[in-house]
């Protein structure tokens, strides 16, 4: 019978089971199976993914993330914040830490429950891509930019009288437009833009639906709104699952700006798996 200690954490409504695998107890195959088993809601612990902390030769630690279907993800902002806080509070890493992920080195700064992630740089030259998109007899204006991954941002004036179902249909149409967006795109709807905050809903291309919160989508929306003159950094971005703060230098003359994203990472509980009723016996190793 397998016994396993874990920590359950969440960031902006994305929840994770965190397992310390620095002693290499589990192989990649075992971790993938463990993710499928444990992420099942109701039948097991239930989570969006399994976050694994491992040793790294070039950084404070290595982060790995397995989705609930057992596949391994490259990187996830909410997950990165959770693992950074965990590593810091468990004495695995200092408050200012650098850790390796499948998408490269990530830098983070932990201040209690708030974690700031260094999101790298955004090329403002690329942001020039404004355009319009035909949708059901209307021309929808958008801004397209790459913040780690491609993002399309749409502002309130182009969403008037549209329901969530309309917006979902619009996002699905934009996403498959290979001519405008050959690499695909996530779609961000800024539903409210005030001087102090933005309210944003992100349609994630990998998920095929709106999610509770998307870190890179928050960053892309904040930069696009800043270029429109709607906000000044630091920008508070409210997602349905929680709030992100996006910070960058307020200088339009720069070709590249470095972006930082701050949000909460919460410890929900410390747990111990008591029995694994299916296939548990051959998971280890």
């Amino acid at each position, binding site marked *: 019978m397998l016994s396993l200690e*874990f920590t*359950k954490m*969440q960031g902006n*409504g*994305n*929840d994770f089971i965190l397992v310390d695998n620095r002693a290499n107890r589990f192989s990649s195959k075992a971790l993938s199976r463990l993710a499928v088993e444990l992420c099942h*809601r*109701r*039948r*097991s*612990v*239930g989570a*969006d993914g399994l976050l694994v902390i491992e040793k790294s030769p070039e950084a404070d630690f290595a982060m790995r993330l397995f989705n609930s279907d057992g596949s391994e993800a490259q990187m996830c902002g909410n997950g990165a914040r959770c693992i950074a806080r965990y590593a810091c509070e468990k004495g695995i890493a200092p408050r200012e830490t650098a850790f390796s992920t499948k998408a490269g080195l990530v830098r983070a700064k932990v201040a209690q*429950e708030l974690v700031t992630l260094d999101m790298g740089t955004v090329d403002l030259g690329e942001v020039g891509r404004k355009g319009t998109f035909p949708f059901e007899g209307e021309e929808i204006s958008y801004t397209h930019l790459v913040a780690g991954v491609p993002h399309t941002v749409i502002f309130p004036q182009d969403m008037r009288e549209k329901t969530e179902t309309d917006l979902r249909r619009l996002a699905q149409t934009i996403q498959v437009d290979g001519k405008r967006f050959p690499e695909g795109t996530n779609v961000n709807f800024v539903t409210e833009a005030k001087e102090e905050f933005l309210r944003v809903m992100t349609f994630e291309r990998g998920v095929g639906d709106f999610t*509770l919160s998307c870190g890179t989508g928050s960053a892309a929306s904040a930069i696009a709104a800043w270029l429109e003159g709607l906000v000044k950094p630091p920008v508070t971005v409210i997602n349905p*699952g929680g709030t992100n703060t996006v910070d960058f230098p307020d200088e339009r003359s720069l070709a590249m700006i470095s972006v930082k994203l701050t949000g909460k990472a*919460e*410890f*929900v*509980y*410390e*747990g*111990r*798996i*008591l*029995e694994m*009723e299916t296939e548990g016996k051959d998971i280890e190793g």
Partner: protein
Amino acid sequence: MKFAKMQANGNDFIIIDNRENIYDYEKIRETAVKACRRRLSLGADGLMTIGKPFIPGSHFGMRFFNRDGSESAMSGNGARCIARYAFQKEIAPRKMRFDTIGGSLDAFVEGPEVTLDMGRVDTSSVLLDETFSYMGETFPVNHMELGHGTAAAPHTVVFLEKSDWRPLETLAPLARALQKVSTRFPDGTNVNFLKVLGHGALEVYTYERGVDDFTLSCGSGSIASAVAAWLNGWCDSPVEVYNPGGTNTILLEEAAPSLLDVKLQGLTAFIAEGELLPDGL
């Protein structure tokens, strides 16, 4: 706050040992609402506490809180989980009696399997040979009431052909129509769609009155279906009842003419034990 998480037939529960009365009623109610949130906290269908017995001679008393903070007498899946918990933690022996706000319950634990004594059904009050017509189709139906006093719940069993492959969504309007026209049950009824697979196996989908939808598994719906099939001579005892969330075994025994002793048996699983941290509340 220490807890255990368990599940039975896809219903998951948080269990808190409150035998020392550390937490008062309000604190537990509030914890149920907060801790049952999926993603943001522990996530569960309900929270149960184990406390001192309400009646002398019982091994413990349980309370059941739904995720909205309301209190229920019990649920068949929840009661099985708490019985196993009590046995494993040496709070009660294998053969135990515990109290709920709806009355006392006898249970027997054997490994992960728990048998609950669900009391007696007066079969003379079951309405057999009824029919219900919907959209040009006529279905044989039985009506009955299970449980007593405040825990009494109306159940309607709709017999479907074994070869009836229509998807569940198409049965929901039928269930709602049945709830509305039923003059026998002014407060609505739980609707169980039953396919008799053989003398030892039934397939049941329950549309629960309080939930207003099909649920993964309903213990009393499984009982009502087994009683109806048994009275019509279509199954024996014990009979396995397949729900989407798992399998219940129903044991029926004639105690006297038109009196049936009913037992509900099924598996339970310990998921995890842990300690809830302040961020989760």
